[in-house]
């Protein structure tokens, strides 16, 4: 029973009354069909038997809301899924909280919710609980999303800074800089923005496969015959650490790893995958691609013996076709540093990126 027909969010949609109920029943529930959510309890009951869980949360305030290759909804799922994935877990459930500015068109909201639901499906996670708040016009920028997620730690996956040793190889599952440059160019209205596409994707499928096959982790889902055939025997603790290079890009993540492990890192520019459009856009804006954000990438530090196998597993996965071994962990001479061997054979230190960069003049 709708009293008024609204095509926009009103403050009252967050008031807990009839409009809230309508919003949930007409716009939210149909998109996320699962028993846990359908109960609409104050909290979700999950049945997981595992002694070890991973738990994370992240908020999404991206502008523009829709960009080439994704939108805030997809990002909110993938970002949290990836945080769980690189911690060595298989994501199982997400909580979704929306902070909506009064006046947001339902059409936009529905589009965003559809892509939340699609991304959740693709990543095999359920949205099991959530919350909606509305705020006055001007108090938020259309919509902010927070997601929290729970993942089941893969038994046998043993990741941590302390596992990293000199000689370990560093793998990335594809090209860098795509997400950040897509967002910046769209925001700044740059010519070739249409050729740029965010890499926004959930990588849990790939990370789980990596761990199951090279770290002696227990499989958590049924394998296809092909996957079992590629399963390696005798290698355990192949993957030692993983992290997703989001804000601050590869430069920030490698510096964190170097600092955390107390070891130095050497990477080769020629082996770091960068798409030509991304390179062109970065050059034009004066940005260093190493410092640009990614949303569908992860770095894996793996033992030298397992490096080739890990690389192959990545390359056989749709999200790792352009995977590459970009460098090694090396002994530290003085302080842990990240060094880049450039294409011309020069060397430079890759510093921790500092704050926000402004596009240059010409």
């Amino acid at each position, binding site marked *: 029973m709708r009293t008024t027909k609204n095509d926009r969010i009103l403050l009252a949609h967050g008031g807990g009354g009839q409009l809230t109920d309508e919003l949930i029943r007409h716009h939210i529930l149909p998109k996320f069909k699962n028993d846990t959510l359908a109960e609409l309890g104050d909290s979700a009951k999950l049945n997981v038997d595992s002694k070890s869980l991973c738990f994370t949360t992240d908020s999404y305030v991206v502008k523009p809301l829709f960009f080439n290759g994704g939108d805030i909804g997809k990002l909110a799922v993938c970002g949290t899924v990836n945080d769980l994935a690189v911690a060595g877990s298989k994501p199982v459930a997400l909580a979704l909280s929306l902070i909506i500015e009064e006046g947001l068109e339902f059409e936009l909201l529905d589009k965003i919710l559809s892509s939340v639901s699609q991304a959740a499906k693709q990543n095999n996670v359920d949205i099991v609980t959530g919350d909606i708040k509305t705020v006055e016009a001007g108090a938020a920028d259309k919509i902010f999303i927070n997601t929290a997620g729970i993942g089941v730690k893969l038994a046998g996956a043993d990741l941590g800074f302390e596992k990293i040793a000199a000689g370990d190889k560093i793998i990335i599952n594809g090209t860098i800089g795509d997400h950040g440059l897509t967002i910046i160019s769209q925001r*700044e*209205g*740059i010519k070739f923005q249409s050729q740029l596409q965010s890499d926004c994707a959930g990588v849990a499928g790939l990370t789980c496969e990596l761990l199951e096959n090279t770290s002696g982790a227990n499989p958590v889902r049924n394998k296809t015959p092909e996957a079992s055939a590629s399963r390696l025997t005798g290698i355990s603790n192949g993957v030692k650490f993983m992290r997703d290079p989001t804000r601050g890009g590869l430069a920030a993540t490698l510096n964190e790893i170097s600092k955390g492990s107390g070891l130095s890192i050497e990477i080769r520019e*020629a082996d770091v995958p960068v798409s030509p459009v991304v390179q062109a856009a970065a050059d034009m804006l*004066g*940005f*260093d691609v190493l410092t640009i954000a990614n949303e569908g990438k992860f770095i894996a530090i793996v033992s030298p013996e397992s490096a080739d196998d890990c690389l192959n597993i990545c390359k056989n996965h749709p999200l790792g076709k352009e995977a590459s071994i970009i460098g090694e962990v090396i002994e530290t*001479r*003085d302080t842990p*540093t990240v*060094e*880049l*061997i*450039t*294409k*011309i*054979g*020069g*060397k*430079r*230190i890759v*510093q921790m*990126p*500092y*704050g926000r*960069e*402004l*596009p*240059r*003049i*010409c």
Partner: protein
Amino acid sequence: MDFMLDRIHKAQTLCNAACEKMGRQINIMEVCGTHTVSIFRNGIRSTLPRKLKLLTGPGCPVCVTDQGYIDTVLQLADRDDCLIATYGDMVRVPGRGGSLETKRTKANVKVVLSSEDALQLAKDNPNKIVVFVAVGFETTAPATAVVVKEAAAGSINNFCILSGHKLVVPAMRALLSGKNHNIDAFLCPGHVSVIIGYGAFAEIVEDFGRPCVVAGFEPLQIIEGLGEICQQLSAGKAELKSVYPAVVTEQGNTSAQKIIAECFEPVDGYWRGLGKIEKSTLKLKDKYSRFDGLKRFNITETPGEDTSGCRCGEVLCGLIEPPECGLFGKSCTPQTPVGPCMVSSEGACAAWFKYGQKRKDE
């Protein structure tokens, strides 16, 4: 790749030979900030002999823009009837009364990527006077000239510019005329040369006997440019050369030169750190004076003194390296810049801050 390494090796050999033969430090100034950044990013210093020193020149328009100019912009930003259209890196440059970023009237400040955007802003906001902060060398001056002509043709009278456009060659003359410079040769910027033609540097070679070599921004071109310079120095020669022949001609882009000449005339102007330089700044010609912001608002610019403690002047003249400034990395960082060299992504101090961390064997 091998072919590239071969050429690099050849150029390095020339540099080594020159350093050995001359038995002293060789100082080569890269005029443009884009060279500075490329040199850092590609680790070029690490491939050069120790006795070859690269000096960072006055090649970033943001850095050399005088404080008086910034103050004028800030003053106009305070007016309710004005909209300031500026390139991104000018936003943080500190003037005497803060920077555009710290202005309470921030809503009056719009970041644009091109002069066209600035003119569009004027068309979209007929009740405001759009003031375009027109800075840059010969690279951006033609684009400013184009919109001034467009505004004149379309009678867009709520548009004006503050011309801070500067000319590269007069600055090089000023540097060499200074008493305590130590510049042996110049690596000249590719994109400025595309416009003015490499022939424009002939006077430097003739009047001062300093080699001038034009190079693009690819690392290979930079190294080959340095090799060419070293070869000349060790042979005791000073010549004009371009190692960027595909793009840069001797005459340059004559239609761009024509449109600059049609709208602007060179007048004496103030440069940060270098002071007053004869015929070094572009002022709108009388027939376009109604688009001249200074005239429109009846402002007389007073040259500003540099912020105390900031040694940008010496940095821009190649007399000191940024870390020699006492404020570098302490009170002066890219987030809290004291001088302009720390603001622009291509400013000497910002480039040193971001990339200049020394490797242990340097």
